[in-house]
C-alpha cells in the first residue's frame, strides 16, 4: 500500500499539516504536497474511472503529463473540473472530487462497458463512426445523450467565477523556459553576457528532476543543492526576472510567447492577487529547457492502479516522502529506471525484482542494484498485471519475439510497478512555431533538428534553441554543457558579447548503457479479460486500436490519431504519442522517422478561460460608446439597443408602456408635433485641403466639387466592386473644407477607406481627413413644430424657410450653445439637425426639451427613426444593402453621376453582372391584410406549388407597422422588381402560412416631399 514515510520529502513541511476533503472524506497532507502526493500518502490508489471503459485508474505520473488523476477541485463558485492532481498544490480546506464515475468511484455501472468490450469490439478504433451511423435520427436523441452522460469528462462550474485574471505584456532579451539544471545554467550564461533574462518554471520549485536524483552530484554537492543555490543567485540578479508556477503555453512567430502564471491557485482568494496571469512576452531569443517526459511501457493491464512511471515513483519518495507501494517491481528498457529501484530500497519498500527487456543490464546503475541483492530479470517482460481497483501482482515471461512471450516466468505479488519505456524530450514548444524534429534511432527519441528548420526571428535567423534534456541530452554532464552553450548563443544572437566562460560545473553521475527499443510486451492470452495494452490512458486507446487503424488503411499518423483519438485528450498525448506512433510504424513496417509526429499545438497544458479573457470580462468585455446625453436617456426610460459600438435608445418607455406602444407614440408625435433625436452617433468626417473637391468626386458616386459652400448633398459611396457601402449627407463648410456624414456604425470604416485611397493611390492630392464623430453632439429636431421650437429655444441664426432652405447649412448659436444647423431630414418632416461641441451636448438637449414642452416635443429613439425613414422609402445601409447591392439596384440612379470620368465603383458598374436586367431591385410591398407585418428576410416565390426547394425571387429587407399609415409597410429586393409594379407576390413564412403582398413604390408617405420642404 501507498504510505507516508517516517522521514524525507524535500518539498514538504511536516510541521504544517493541511486538512482536505476527497470525495467527501476528510484527509490530511502537509504543506508542500500536491493533491496527488497527499492522496498517495493516504493510500488513495484508485483516483478515477477511465473515459470510455470506466476502468479503475490510479496516479501514473508526478507532473504535467499525468493522464489519469483529473479532479473537480474547489467548491461553489470556485469549482473547476479536470484539474491534474499532480500539478495542484494542496492547501488547507481543499475540496476535490473524482470524475467519470456513477454512482460512485468504488462501484461504477459504466464499467459494464469494459466487460462487454472483452467480448465484442465495443469502443475499438472507429467504433463511433461504425456503430452510430443509422438510423440517423437516433444519433441526436439516443446515442449522443447516452454517450455524453457515460463519457463526460468532468462537470462545468455552475456559478460565476469570483476571481480576477490579468494580462501582462513583457519584453526581454532572452526568455528561458524551464527551471531545471539546464534552464538555470542557460539563464546564468545569458545573464553573464549582460542580457536581460526572463526565467520561468511551471512548478513551484527550481531544480526540475535534479531535486529527486540522489546519484548525481554537481560541483561536489548533490544536484538538488546545486540547483537550489544557482536559482537563489539568479533570483538575486537584478538583470534576471524569475517566475515560478509559470508555464510557457505556446511559442508563436517572431519570438512571441504566452506564459501562464498561476498566481494564487495555491492560496485561493488571496486579496489583491489575480488567480492567473497571462504573460504576453516578446523575446529576442528563447531557450527551451523543458526537460523530458518518461514513456510508459505497453503491457497487458498496464493501466491497473499501482502501475506508475518509474521517475514519478522516485519523485513521490524523494520530494514528498511518500512511497507508492510496499512490494514493488521495476519494469524497464533503460538504466535510468534502476534509480527508482534504489530509491524504493532506500524508502524501505521490498523491491522484488527489476524486469529488464535487455539481455545485458551491466551498467553502473544495474551494478548498484545488484549490490543491494535486487534480482534482475534480463530479457524478460511483464506479460500481465493483475488486479482491479488495486494492483495485485504481475506475471513475468521471457520475451521470445515481438508477438510472443514465454510462460513459466515467476509470478510476483506486488502492489507497485515502476515502469519506464525511456524518455522523450519535451519538444512541444519548439515545434509550435516551426522547429523540426528528427528521430534518433539510438537514443529512441524525437529531438530538435534545427538543420531542417527552426523557429526564426523577423530577420530570418534562428531565435529559439532547445537546451539540455529538451534537446535530447538526458544525462547531467552533456545536459549542462548543451544548456550553457544555448544560453551563450542566445545572448550573442540577442546582440550581447559573451563574457569569459563561467567555470564548467563538475558532474559526478553513474554512466548509462543504451536504451533498448521495446514498444509492446505481448501477453499470453490475447482475448482474456484484463489483457488490454493501453497506449493512451486518458482517451482509453489501446495498442490493438492503433494496429486496427493501420490494418484499415490509416497510414498517416494524423489520420490514425483522429480515428483512434490517440493523443486527443486533455493531456494531448504527453505520455502516449511516441508509443502510439512507434506501434503504428511497426504495424506499417515503416521507420518511425517516416511516420513522424502529429502536430504539436498550443497550449502545452490547458490554461484557464479566465486567463485568456484577462481583464476583458463583465463591463470590460467590450468597449461601449455612449453619447454626451446618455445619462439623460437612462433617466428618462430609454430602452437601449446596440448600434455598432454605440448604445442608443431604441425608444423611451413610459410607465406601463410596451415597446410597440412607445414607438407608435414617438412616431405619431414627431409627425404631428415635434420629436427630438439624439443623432450624435452619426459618423462625422472632416475633409480639408485644396484637392478636397477632386478627392470627394472620386469617392462619391455623385458630384461633390460643384456643391456650394453652405449647402448639403446626399451622397453614396461604393467600393471598387461597384457595391454601395455607405451613404450620408455631405456639407460644404468652406471653399476647401467638407463635412461628411456617415452611418453610425460606419465612421471608422469610411475614415479608413478615405485614408487608404489618399495614402496608397492618390498621394498626389493634398487632402487631410479627420474623423470628428466624437467631437460633436448632434440633435435632430423633426416635425411640423421644429422651426418654432428652435426659435423658442433662442438662436442667432436665421432659420426661416427663405434664409435656410431644405439642404442648407448655417452656423450660430442655439440656446447659447455653439451650433452648426443643417436643414436635412431623415424623417421626411421639417427637420433641423443641430451639431454642438460634445461638451455642450447635454445642455443643448435639455434646453431644446425645455423649449419644446410648449410644442409637445418628445424624444424619439432608433425604432421610430427607422419606421419614419421606411415610410419615406429611405434606404438603410445594412438593411437594403448587404455588400452585393448597387445604387442602381436601389433606384438611386439619380445619385450616380454620368458626367464624371471616374469614381470608385464606376468601372465595375458596367460589368456584365451589374447591368443584367434580372438583378434584384428595390420595391415597396403592401400586404393584402394591412395588419399583417411581413417577417424581416421573408423570401418571395412566384409559384407556391413548385416542388421544394423552391426558387425564390427576392427577400424582404425592411418591414414595419406604420403608425402614420395605420398599416404594415415593407421594402424588398425582388428580381426585376421595377417591372413588377402591381403584381402580387407570395411569401411562404413557415407551416402552411403564405402572406400575399402587392408590389408598390417604396415611398409610402408624402411622395412629393412637401412636408420636409416648408
Amino acid at each position, binding site marked *: 500500500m501507498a504510505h507516508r514515510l517516517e522521514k524525507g520529502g524535500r518539498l514538504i513541511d511536516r510541521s504544517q499539516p493541511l486538512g482536505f476533503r476527497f470525495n467527501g472524506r476528510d484527509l490530511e497532507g502537509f504543506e508542500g504536497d500536491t493533491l496527488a502526493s497527499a492522496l498517495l500518502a493516504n493510500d488513495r490508489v484508485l483516483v478515477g474511472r477511465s473515459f470510455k471503459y470506466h476502468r479503475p485508474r490510479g496516479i501514473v505520473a508526478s507532473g504535467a503529463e499525468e493522464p489519469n488523476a483529473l479532479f473537480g477541485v474547489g467548491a461553489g463558485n470556485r469549482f473547476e473540473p479536470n484539474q491534474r492532481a499532480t500539478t495542484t498544490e494542496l492547501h488547507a480546506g481543499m475540496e476535490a472530487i473524482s470524475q467519470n464515475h456513477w454512482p460512485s468511484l468504488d462501484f461504477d455501472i459504466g464499467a459494464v462497458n469494459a466487460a462487454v468490450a472483452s467480448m465484442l469490439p465495443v469502443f475499438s478504433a472507429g467504433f463511433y463512426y461504425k456503430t452510430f451511423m443509422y438510423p440517423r435520427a437516433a444519433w441526436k436523441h439516443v446515442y449522443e445523450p447516452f454517450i455524453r452522460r457515460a463519457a463526460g469528462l468532468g462537470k462545468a462550474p455552475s456559478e460565476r467565477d469570483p476571481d480576477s485574471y490579468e494580462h501582462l505584456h513583457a519584453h526581454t532579451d532572452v526568455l528561458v523556459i524551464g527551471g531545471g539544471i539546464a534552464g538555470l545554467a542557460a539563464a546564468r550564461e545569458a545573464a553573464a553576457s549582460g542580457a536581460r533574462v526572463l526565467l520561468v518554471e511551471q512548478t513551484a520549485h527550481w531544480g526540475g528532476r535534479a531535486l529527486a536524483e540522489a546519484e548525481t552530484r554537481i560541483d561536489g554537492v548533490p544536484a538538488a543543492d546545486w540547483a537550489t543555490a544557482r536559482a537563489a543567485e539568479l533570483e538575486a540578479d537584478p538583470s534576471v526576472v524569475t517566475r515560478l508556477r509559470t508555464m510557457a503555453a505556446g511559442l508563436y512567430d*517572431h519570438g*512571441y510567447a504566452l506564459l501562464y502564471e498561476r498566481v494564487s491557485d495555491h492560496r485561493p482568494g488571496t486579496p489583491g492577487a489575480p488567480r492567473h496571469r497571462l504573460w504576453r512576452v516578446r523575446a529576442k531569443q528563447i531557450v527551451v529547457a523543458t526537460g523530458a517526459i518518461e514513456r510508459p511501457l505497453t503491457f497487458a493491464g498496464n493501466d491497473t492502479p499501482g502501475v506508475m512511471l518509474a521517475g514519478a515513483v522516485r519523485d513521490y519518495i524523494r520530494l514528498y516522502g511518500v512511497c507508492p507501494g510496499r512490494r514493488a517491481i521495476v519494469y524497464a528498457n533503460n538504466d535510468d529506471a534502476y534509480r527508482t529501484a534504489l530509491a524504493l530500497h532506500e524508502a524501505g519498500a521490498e523491491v522484488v525484482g527489476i524486469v529488464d527487456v535487455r539481455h545485458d543490464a551491466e551498467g553502473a546503475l544495474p551494478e548498484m542494484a545488484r549490490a543491494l541483492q535486487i534480482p534482475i530479470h534480463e530479457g524478460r517482460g511483464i506479460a500481465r498485471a493483475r488486479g482491479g481497483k488495486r494492483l495485485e501482482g504481475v506475471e513475468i515471461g521471457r520475451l521470445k519475439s515481438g508477438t510472443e512471450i514465454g510462460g513459466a516466468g515467476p509470478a510476483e505479488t506486488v502492489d507497485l510497478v515502476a515502469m519506464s519505456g525511456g524518455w522523450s524530450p519535451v519538444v512541444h514548444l519548439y515545434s509550435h512555431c516551426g522547429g523540426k524534429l528528427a528521430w534518433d534511432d539510438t537514443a529512441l527519441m524525437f529531438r530538435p533538428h534545427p538543420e531542417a528548420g527552426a523557429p526564426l526571428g*523577423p530577420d530570418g535567423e534562428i531565435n529559439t534553441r532547445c537546451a539540455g534534456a529538451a534537446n535530447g541530452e538526458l544525462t547531467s554532464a552533456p545536459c549542462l554543457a548543451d544548456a550553457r552553450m544555448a544560453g551563450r548563443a542566445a545572448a550573442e544572437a540577442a546582440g550581447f558579447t559573451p563574457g569569459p566562460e563561467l567555470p564548467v560545473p563538475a558532474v559526478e553521475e553513474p554512466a548509462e548503457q543504451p536504451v533498448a527499443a521495446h514498444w509492446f510486451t505481448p501477453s499470453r492470452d490475447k482475448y482474456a479479460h484484463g489483457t488490454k495494452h493501453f497506449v493512451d490512458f486518458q482517451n482509453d486507446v489501446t495498442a490493438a486500436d492503433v494496429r486496427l487503424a493501420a490494418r484499415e488503411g490509416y497510414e498517416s499518423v494524423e489520420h490514425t490519431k483522429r480515428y483512434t483519438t490517440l493523443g486527443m485528450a486533455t493531456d494531448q498525448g504527453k505520455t502516449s504519442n511516441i508509443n502510439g506512433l512507434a506501434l503504428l510504424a511497426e504495424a506499417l513496417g515503416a521507420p518511425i522517422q517516416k511516420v513522424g509526429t502529429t502536430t504539436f499545438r498550443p497550449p502545452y497544458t490547458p490554461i484557464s478561460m479566465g486567463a485568456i479573457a484577462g481583464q476583458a470580462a463583465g463591463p470590460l468585455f467590450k468597449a461601449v460608446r455612449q453619447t454626451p446625453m446618455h445619462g439623460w436617456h437612462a433617466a428618462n426610460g430609454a430602452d437601449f439597443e446596440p448600434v455598432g459600438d454605440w448604445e442608443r435608445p431604441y425608444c423611451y418607455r413610459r410607465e406601463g408602456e410596451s415597446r410597440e406602444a412607445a414607438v407608435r407614440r414617438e412616431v405619431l408625435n414627431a409627425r404631428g408635433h415635434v420629436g427630438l433625436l439624439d443623432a450624435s452617433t452619426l459618423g462625422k468626417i472632416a475633409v480639408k485641403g485644396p484637392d478636397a473637391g477632386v478627392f470627394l468626386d472620386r469617392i462619391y458616386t455623385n458630384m461633390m466639387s460643384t456643391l456650394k459652400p453652405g449647402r448639403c448633398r446626399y451622397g453614396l459611396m461604393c467600393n471598387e466592386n461597384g457595391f454601395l457601402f455607405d451613404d450620408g449627407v455631405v456639407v460644404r463648410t468652406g471653399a476647401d473644407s467638407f463635412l461628411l456624414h456617415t452611418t453610425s456604425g460606419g465612421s471608422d470604416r469610411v475614415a*479608413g477607406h478615405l485614408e*487608404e485611397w489618399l495614402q*496608397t493611390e492618390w*498621394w498626389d492630392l493634398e487632402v487631410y481627413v479627420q474623423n470628428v464623430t466624437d467631437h460633436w453632439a448632434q440633435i435632430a429636431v423633426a416635425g411640423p413644430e421644429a422651426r418654432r421650437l428652435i426659435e423658442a429655444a433662442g438662436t442667432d441664426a436665421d432659420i426661416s424657410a427663405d434664409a435656410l432652405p431644405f439642404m442648407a447649412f448655417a452656423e450660430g448659436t442655439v440656446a447659447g450653445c455653439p451650433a452648426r444647423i443643417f436643414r436635412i431630414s431623415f424623417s421626411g418632416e421639417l427637420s433641423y439637425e443641430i451639431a454642438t461641441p460634445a461638451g455642450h451636448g447635454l445642455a443643448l438637449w435639455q434646453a431644446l426639451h425645455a423649449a419644446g414642452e410648449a410644442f409637445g416635443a418628445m424624444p424619439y429613439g432608433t425604432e421610430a427613426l427607422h419606421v419614419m425613414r421606411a415610410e419615406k422609402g429611405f434606404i438603410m445601409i445594412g438593411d437594403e444593402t448587404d455588400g452585393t447591392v448597387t445604387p442602381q439596384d436601389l433606384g438611386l440612379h439619380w445619385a450616380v453621376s454620368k458626367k464624371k470620368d471616374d469614381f470608385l465603383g*464606376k*468601372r465595375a458598374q*458596367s460589368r456584365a453582372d451589374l447591368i443584367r436586367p434580372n438583378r434584384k431591385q428595390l420595391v415597396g410591398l403592401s400586404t393584402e391584410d394591412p395588419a399583417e407585418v411581413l417577417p424581416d428576410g421573408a423570401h418571395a416565390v412566384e409559384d407556391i406549388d413548385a416542388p421544394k426547394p423552391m426558387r425564390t425571387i427576392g427577400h424582404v429587407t425592411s418591414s414595419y407597422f406604420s403608425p402614420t399609415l395605420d398599416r404594415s409597410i415593407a421594402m424588398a429586393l425582388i428580381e426585376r422588381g421595377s417591372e413588377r409594379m402591381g403584381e402580387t407576390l407570395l411569401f411562404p413564412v413557415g407551416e402552411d402560412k403564405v402572406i400575399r403582398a402587392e408590389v408598390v413604390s417604396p415611398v409610402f408617405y408624402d411622395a412629393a416631399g412637401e412636408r420636409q420642404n416648408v
Partner: protein
Amino acid sequence: MLLITCPNCGADCAETELAPGGEAHLERFGPGSTDEDFAGYLFTRKNPKGVHFERWRHAFGCGKWFHAARCTVTLEVFGTYPAQVTEPPAEIVERIRARRPNWEG
C-alpha cells in the same frame, strides 16, 4: 505573431497593431479598361511561396499605410518601405537578393 517595423514612425509593431492590406503594387484599372484587365485588378492576386510584397496599415499606431517585403514561408521580413511608390525600392530588392540568391522576382 509577426513583428514588423513601421517605416513611418519607426515602431516595431506586433501584428495586432497592424491591419493587413493584401498584395502591394497593384495597378488600378478604371473606366475604359478591358474586362480582362479590370477583372485582374479586382480579383487576381499573387500567392507566392516565398518573397511577397504586401500592404499593411499601422492601424493602431500612426495610421499610415506602408509596404513590407516578406517571405511567406519563413516569415522573414526583408524590409519595409513607404506606400507611395509603384515598385519596391532598389535597396529592398538588393536585400532580398542577398538573402534569396535564387529569387526570380
